[in-house]
């Protein structure tokens, strides 16, 4: 992102906050991966390593009462919405203090009070759901926006297309995104679709679309902010394709030997944290010692979170039976 544009369009404090959340996301997911390698986390670990700028960028562009239906590599969105590292690690450890109290694992967490719709493994399922949230905002005349996405693979599912179509027909205040990280588990984009750019799908629904450098947090933030502003002003949905690369396997168990080494090497130089640091230095907002200090702050947060999660109790087995049905007081007003 051109530094002059950034200097003019993004507040310094916002940019510095985004940098902190990039570092916090990286520290947290590195810790979660380490805990997995030690055998202390069971189940899947899907990280956003090398893609942190997407969730940090878009979540920073939203207002607190907007609603997010994240992709499963959007840890930054949870952190920005106030999920503590302790709660999140507790979730991965299956502890009672995690947002789902052990009912679900890893990034499958949500909280309507904090505006995050819980992820569903069936990719793109939450895109019509987010369109419905936007429909509720429109019916009630609220100035709120829904923001929802999936991966390149998820755009092959019918729910992606049904959501895009419905939102466009009804001009709903929703922004859809695709994290195009080039692989759906082991399947490269060329076996997923006959087009190169996912954004082409938007044309079929009469929806404006934009390709965004997903490794540039400033670019993600600004593109999201434009799309959100359009949605909020009644101009309807926008589709954003965040181009990036999945730098780890699909899940922590996957060595991703099917990804050409050269491709990973090329993308290593585009690491979003390195890119953000370059930008901050160009703007004179930060230097090496500042970056080190932020890194230490993030690590301390994750250390405290790990301790909290490890001290937390596991749920009792009989908790299995609790919560199949809701009670009236749990319905949002």
């Amino acid at each position, binding site marked *: 992102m051109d530094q002059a544009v950034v200097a003019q369009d993004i507040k310094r404090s916002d940019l510095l906050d985004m940098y902190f959340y990039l570092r916090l996301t990286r520290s947290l997911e590195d810790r979660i991966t380490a805990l997995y390698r030690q055998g202390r986390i069971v189940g899947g670990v899907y990280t956003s390593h090398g893609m942190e700028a997407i969730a940090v960028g878009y979540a920073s562009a939203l207002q607190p009462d907007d609603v997010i239906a994240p992709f499963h590599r959007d840890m930054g969105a949870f952190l920005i919405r106030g999920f503590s590292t302790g709660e999140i690690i507790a979730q991965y450890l299956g502890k009672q203090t995690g947002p789902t109290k052990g009912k679900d694992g890893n990034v499958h967490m949500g909280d*309507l009070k904090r505006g995050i719709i819980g992820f569903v493994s069936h990719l793109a399922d939450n895109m019509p759901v987010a369109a*419905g949230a936007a429909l509720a905002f429109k019916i009630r005349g609220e100035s709120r926006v829904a923001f929802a996405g999936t991966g390149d693979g998820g755009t092959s599912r019918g729910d992606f297309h049904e959501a895009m179509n419905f939102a466009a027909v009804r001009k709903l205040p929703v922004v859809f995104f695709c994290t195009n990280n080039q692989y759906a588990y082991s399947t490269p984009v060329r076996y997923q679709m006959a087009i190169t750019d996912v954004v082409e799908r938007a044309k079929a629904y009469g929806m404006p679309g934009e390709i965004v450098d997903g490794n540039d947090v400033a670019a993600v933030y600004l593109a999201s902010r434009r799309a959100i502003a359009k949605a909020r002003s009644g101009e309807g949905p926008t589709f954003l394709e965040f181009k990036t690369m999945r730098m780890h396997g699909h899940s922590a168990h996957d060595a991703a030997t099917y990804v050409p080494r050269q491709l990973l090497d090329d993308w290593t130089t585009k690491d979003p944290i390195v890119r953000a640091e370059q930008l901050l230095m160009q703007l004179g907002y930060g230097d090496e010692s500042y970056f080190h200090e932020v890194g230490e702050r993030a690590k301390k947060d994750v250390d405290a979170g790990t301790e909290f999660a490890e001290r937390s109790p596991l749920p009792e087995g009989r908790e299995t039976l609790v919560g199949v049905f809701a009670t009236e007081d749990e319905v949002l007003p």
Partner: protein
Amino acid sequence: MTTATAAQETQTTYVDAISQALDDEMRRDERVFLMGEDIGAYGGAFKVTDGFFNKYGEWRVLDTPLSESGFVGAAIGAAMMGLRPVVEMQFADFISCAFDQITEVAAKNHYRWGAAVPLVIRAPFGGGVHGGPFHSECPEGWFFHSPGLKIVAPSTPYDAKGLLKAAIRDPNPVLYFEHKFLYRRIKAILPQEDYIVPLGKADVKRPGRDVSLITYGAMVHLALEAAEMLQQEGIELEVVDLRTLIPLDKETIYASVRKTSKAIILHEDNKTGGIGAEISALLTEECFDCLDGPILRIAPPDTPVPFSTPLEEFFLPKVSDIVAAARKLAAY
């Protein structure tokens, strides 16, 4: 006769009872809105929402694209934000397109992360109307096995209205299976005042001491007809109308079978793995000591619902099936 008395004695059809429930709830609660195919200006394939579009406008009576998964998903999202969507499946058969949204998203959201989904999906189901394999299905069995959903299947205008109101007021996803064979075939005088029929309560539609017949939906009327015939030969059939399949009113089922010691389960969904199988298993687990004969099931064969009249007549349960089963059990 005074005008007031005449109004009170107006007969309401099953389909009008459903329309009245929707109208009442939309008037009572501005959070309630409708979504579905052709429900707007056209008033719905069965005219359940006739006139609603003009009365409530295009944002409370939404015509949707032909995409069941998409609009059920959207209804889930709106419900989580605090609205009370009532979705119409044009035919219950098409609910298969939305299976994933219903079973994976709506049914699991509260259990997984505490999000209430106050959603109703109305689904006109059942045969006897020459609809063929794609317009006659009874798909409730698919959902009976999915924790997190409530399932309702009324048999009378009174229950249809009261159960739909209760479903709309419930904070959970409720599948409301309305039998289209009954739409204009049965009528009743309904109370003028607001009432609900609580979810999870079965109703003994006809008491009897000899054999319990447990059923729901249009089959209730077949059972009542059979009960009348059996009465002539001195066999008293007790007809238990489940009304709600989930939560299942086990107490009423057990109480009836403990009284009669004999049980038949009748449904229009095909036999294998159906609701009858579950009730039969429950009775074996809970009422084994009081049974005087085998638990019998009457249900269509394991085929799609065929189109041609003789085929569909063969497929659907008949009064004679019930009479034969009751005679067989009464002999024990």
